[in-house]
């Protein structure tokens, strides 16, 4: 059902946890659909210095969160915003069709966290 990359990220997810004094926090998804993704960002000089996630969801939701955090860590805010769900699917080496929405959630989650960071910064 899942390829080795997905299973590897599900079994050993990277960047799990929370950041106490996060510069930006994004939460997307709903209990209805069975997936909730929460992202915590630490930003310095427009660069994502640290990122953590917590996800309630299936293996592909967890793997999508995990690989997304790896892909944006150390990148600029603009680079992170350019990340699409297709990038996430490609990095995972593919997801079953019914699970592609998990990668969409990962894209939405990083965007929500960046929006929160920008809103806080704008204050």
């Amino acid at each position: 059902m899942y390829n080795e990359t997905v299973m590897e990220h599900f079994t050993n997810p990277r960047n799990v946890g929370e950041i106490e004094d996060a510069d930006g926090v994004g939460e997307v998804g709903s209990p209805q659909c069975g997936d909730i993704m929460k992202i915590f960002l630490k930003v310095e000089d427009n660069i994502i210095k640290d990122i953590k996630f917590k996800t309630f969801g299936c293996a592909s939701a967890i793997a999508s969160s995990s690989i997304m955090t790896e892909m944006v860590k150390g990148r600029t805010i603009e680079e992170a915003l350019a990340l699409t769900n297709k990038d996430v699917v490609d990095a995972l080496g593919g997801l079953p069709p019914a699970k592609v929405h998990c990668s969409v959630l990962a894209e939405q989650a990083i965007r929500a966290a960046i929006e929160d960071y920008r809103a806080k910064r704008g204050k």
Partner: protein
Amino acid sequence: MEKRRIYVDNSATTPIHPQVLEEMMPYLTESYGNPSSIHFFGREARKAMDKARERVALGLGAKTEEIYFTGSGTEADNWAVKGVAFANKKKGNHIITTKIEHHAILHTCEYLEKQGFDVTYLDVDEYGLVNPDDVENAINDRTILISVMFANNEIGTIQPIEEIGKIAKKRAVYFHTDAVQAMGNVDINVDKLGVDLLSISGHKIMGPKGIGALYVRKGTRIDNLIHGGAQERKRRSGTENVAAVVGMGKAVQLAVENLDQHVRKMTSLRDALIDGIKERIPHVRLNGHPSQRLANNVNFSFEFVEGEALLLSLDMEGIAASSGSACTSGSLDPSHVLLAIGLSHETAHGSLRMSLGEINTREDIDYILDKLPAIVEKLRALSPLFKQCEGGKVSV
């Protein structure tokens, strides 16, 4: 403990019993005749089918001429509901069923709604029990069929079939029960239950796949579902799957003979698993009725975690189970049964069903109880819904 292969998905399917396979083998090899043929090859096959029908009839307390073999439990359910609906549509167009039926009933009823039938889907209580008073109150002068499952495939709740049977008889409405999960786990006698139609399946009781049976009380008005060469006494056409029929006959015989012993063994394993999970893992909910449940059914919701992630983690430890999570079904909604008993979406998504069988041992239970707590803990550590506070208190 070393890695094992543990199968606790016996409500999905069961392995074939060695004695069942042994009785089937001749009909997969040298005795290949068509039971409709008059030559000795055909007569051999016919004789084997008669014997199987007798065994199934005996197992249900029915007459042999009231047993019809089908291609599956699903077909038996389809036939019962559509067959009675179409044969009695001049009398009425109202069907009563429940919200927790198997999809073989629910989707058939939804199809019939499109054909102009009215269907009442009864609610169940928090344990998944149907209230017989609700059944009686739902009956009107157009009601032609009541279909209530004997035991639920997900949460194992056993319904008061005998009580509903009395109501159906009093109000002269045909009564069907899907006994696919109950067979082999509950004593079944069609007269005692007061049912007019009853579905069973072979592969749930250590018989082969691709075979089911429908009990139809003599005199019941029912249309055919499958038309053709007049097999099954002109009621269900198609050349008979003789080996599977033979296997089903043997499986029913064994299930009935071993019922008491099986129920004792399953109850003991089930309760050890239920108690062990409650002792070892906080924030769990046993789904289904505490006592009115199948001897082999364990269904828990683990708060803050999702069922598919749970299943895959168990799979990696060599434990095969199932879940009512949406992510395991390809739809976005979790199990209709878990929603019907009042679970929130997130709690329904975190459900795990372990259904036991003759192949399971106490060592299997101990192995599951050894592995499961750490898996749940790991997934909870990932979950934004779960926050472990100081002193072990939990806030959501």
